[in-house]
């Protein structure tokens, strides 16, 4: 075993988490490389120190204070189980702000909500500037404004939807476990718009000189795959911080995974049939495994769907090469 691989197994070695053959290999390398042994000692000391730091005693009044805070929150008119009331309240506040702004700006038509919408869209386009291919934002915006099933849309009716953007279905509690079918559930028309809570700027390292987002392509020479068995290299892609309240995101990822001959799974490798999401969730994680050779194609497919790869983290593993991607999506 090369010392490079041994050093990447020191932590697992300390935890007794290595198969016998690998453990013996690490011990053999340790005996030949004193610098590696020193490294092991450092790690041991650090683990000991962190372990000795805990446990800590929480303040005595913590639990009563938490329970009291919960009680106070439940009594607040802004909290409570009635989501419809909250949505209406939110809409009321939005309309009030829009009206106030219009009056303040001296505009004649205070009910000019399309202009307000356009401003919001412009802000979102600004946020996503460079995150989607030039031809795609309009198509994505149409999906965002799709009415619920059965409702007509005068403006959008003449335009073709991009492939796979058909149903406005949120992947919710699975009524039929074990089925491959994704079951759409009805959403309020503004569910997608409500989902984004704190849009994050895409990191600069993924931008080219023109300020456009470029998908991260792993440098395989610098990130060698440990593949002793000689099996084909796989990428495990963890798509996280997906803005999952968007009715289309997980469906799109599911379709994309299937088109690539794989399945979308949860973090434990169990295929996702239907994703359970609560009203407060604004992201979920989803995983899929791809042949490494398909990675570039996969990223370009994501970009075509209006998803921008923002963060990547090459990660070595004994069995596969993992890559974490942050996928952002216009809600």
């Amino acid at each position: 075993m090369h010392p490079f691989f041994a050093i990447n197994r020191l932590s697992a070695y300390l935890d007794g988490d290595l198969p016998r053959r690998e453990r013996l290999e690490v011990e053999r390398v340790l005996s030949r490389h004193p610098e590696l042994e020193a490294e092991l000692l450092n790690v041991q000391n650090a683990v000991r120190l962190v372990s000795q730091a805990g446990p800590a005693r929480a303040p005595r009044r913590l639990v009563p204070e938490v329970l009291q805070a919960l009680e106070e929150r439940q009594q607040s008119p802004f909290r409570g189980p009635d989501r419809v009331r909250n949505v209406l309240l939110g809409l009321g506040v939005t309309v009030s702000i829009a009206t106030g702004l219009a009056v303040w700006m001296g505009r004649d038509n205070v009910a000019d909500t399309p202009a307000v919408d356009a401003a919001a869209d412009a802000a979102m386009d600004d946020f996503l500037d460079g995150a989607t291919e030039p031809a795609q934002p309009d198509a994505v915006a149409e999906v965002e404004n799709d009415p619920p099933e059965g409702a007509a849309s005068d403006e959008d009716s003449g335009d073709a939807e991009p492939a796979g953007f058909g149903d406005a279905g949120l992947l919710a509690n699975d009524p039929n476990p074990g089925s491959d079918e994704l079951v759409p559930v009805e959403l309020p028309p503004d569910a997608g718009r409500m989902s984004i809570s704190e849009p994050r700027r895409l990191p600069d390292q993924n931008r080219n000189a023109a300020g456009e987002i470029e998908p991260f392509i792993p440098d395989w020479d610098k990130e060698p795959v440990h593949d002793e068995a000689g099996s084909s290299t796989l990428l495990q892609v963890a798509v996280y911080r997906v803005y999952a309240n968007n009715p289309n995101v997980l469906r799109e990822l599911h379709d994309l995974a299937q088109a690539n001959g794989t399945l979308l799974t949860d973090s434990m490798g169990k295929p996702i049939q239907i994703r359970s999401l609560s009203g407060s969730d604004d992201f979920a994680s989803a995983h899929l495994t791809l042949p490494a050779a398909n990675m570039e194609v996969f990223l370009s497919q994501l970009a075509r769907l209006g998803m921008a790869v923002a963060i990547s983290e090459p990660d070595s593993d004994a069995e596969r090469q993992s890559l974490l991607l942050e996928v952002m999506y216009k809600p």
Partner: protein
Amino acid sequence: MSAELQPDAQLPDAELARRARGGETDALEVLLRRYQDPAYGLCLRWLGDTRHAGDAVKDALVSFSEQLRRSTTPPAVLVYQSAIAECEERAKARKIEKAGLDEGDETRLRAALSELDINELSVLLLRDLVGLDLDQIAEVLALSRGSARSRLQRARLKIGRLLETRIDV
């Protein structure tokens, strides 16, 4: 803890969570008491002082309690996710001061921990302070087991090197 809660204290998390979702405050209280110390320990190591850690863990447990009502995620996962989210937010809001390097192990450890990034810090504390195994960490952080193991490896190497010249063996 109130006397009538004693029998419930033996119940598994899933049963307590089910009861809490059904509105049984006693069941929620047992869960809160079960996780308050490890959650506080996590916040304390992350934020470095008792005042901020106390505020963070309180908000984290409030958030945990609210999420528990509408989520089927295991309580252990939810509570650490809430604690990490609180710490992350607070650490961003106030730049954590780097501790000095000329005092005891406690201060040296704080200094080294403050050099780790969020990903490294969370996996290290969950493993070596809280004592979760890799599968549990993977679930809390929504990672694959392999990614959790790699992060832990990186975090341990890094903190080991940071402490290298500061700790007497």
